């Protein structure tokens, strides 16, 4: 397909989305939104079908006769019973399986990562930055301690310090988000001006 047509389509959809900000909610914006939902939903199913469903059905079950693979297929299909009210409870069975597997993985796989994170957090206190880091971790942990009311002065001081660390972190995260969004905006403007209108030089 032509690259020019692709550029024009991309430009149309880019401008269609910006009409929400530059004008107000309108039919062109909603059309672009509709296309986005349709393409994304279909793409998700297509990728799942070609990466997981087709290989198992065509190779494992039909070619290699691994009929045990029918069990997860039946489990997955049970979820669709939620659209039929009298048997909607059947969809709880696969949910039970997924929740059980998920809970087990949290119990058996997370401790390793968690313990290594704790070890990495308690640095040797031979540098000022290391000291600030360790104090920051402890202060924020204390800030999230809700089991009993905090009344003593040292604990109150620690929660105040923890809150300050959190605020610095939130400010930094917010600034990083702003930067990434502005970068995307510049990318789209660059596309419109350079690739589509060709009025700005690369």
């Amino acid at each position, binding site marked *: 397909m032509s690259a020019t047509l692709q550029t024009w389509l991309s430009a149309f959809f880019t401008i269609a989305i910006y009409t929400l900000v530059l004008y107000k909610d309108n039919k062109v914006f909603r059309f672009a939104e509709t296309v986005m939902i*349709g393409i994304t939903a279909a793409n998700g199913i297509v990728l799942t079908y070609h990466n997981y469903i087709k290989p198992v059905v065509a190779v494992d079950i039909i070619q290699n006769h691994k009929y045990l693979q029918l069990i997860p297929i039946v489990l997955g299909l049970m979820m669709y019973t939620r659209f039929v009210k009298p048997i909607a409870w059947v969809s709880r069975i696969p949910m039970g399986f997924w929740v059980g597997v998920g809970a087990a993985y949290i119990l058996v796989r997370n401790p390793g990562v968690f313990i290594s994170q704790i070890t990495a957090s308690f640095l040797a206190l031979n540098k000022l930055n290391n000291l600030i880091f360790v104090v920051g971790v402890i202060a924020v942990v204390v800030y999230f301690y809700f089991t009993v009311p905090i009344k003593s002065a040292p604990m109150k001081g620690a929660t105040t310090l923890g809150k300050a660390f959190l605020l610095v972190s939130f400010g930094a995260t917010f600034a990083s988000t702003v930067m990434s969004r502005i970068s995307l905006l510049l990318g789209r403007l660059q596309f419109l001006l350079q690739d589509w209108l060709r009025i700005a030089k690369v």
Partner: protein
Amino acid sequence: MKKTLPFALAFVSALTITICVFFDLAPALVEEIDKWFILSTAFVCCIGLVNLTKVHTRNIQRRGRDWDLSIVLLAITFGYLLLGVVTGPTAPLYAWIFDSTAVPLGATFYSVLSFYIVSAAYRAFRVKSRDAAILLISGIIVLLGNAPIGEVIYPGFGTATKWIMDIANTSAMRAVIFGATIGSFITAIRVFLGIDRPYTATGE
């Protein structure tokens, strides 16, 4: 039956994996359960499509708001789905459509947020208290540290940004992760023991 069977399945699958992984027993069984987990979730991929079709078919029948767009949505979804299933996701036409629509639309949707984030920043960064001042100072330093103009205004912005990101931000986030991980452990134990049964709400 309605409550016991899902709980039994949750308990048995959780217990099997826990025992097998902790005591390093039957790795093939764990691998098989892993595969079952992935495959069973893959077969649920159409549940959103069924719901989408139900909602928009009803909208078309009732001539509801933007019913014409509902037709467009169903046509695009099923047309693109059929094309993808028949030709595969690497087919030139399929990739061309994706690159012409979803790629620019996705990037533009995220970039639109930059307009709203500016107004959010105005509200969040108004210095009304000590807390807001800390938020503002940290945000401005990181913004200027990442933007080329920041280094021109004051060369120390880059170093200050690195310090905020590496020390203050990492230490705070590390503690938040500790809290979240402990919370997930507790939830997992509650699910394991059947104190929490989130799956029993399905189909009510």
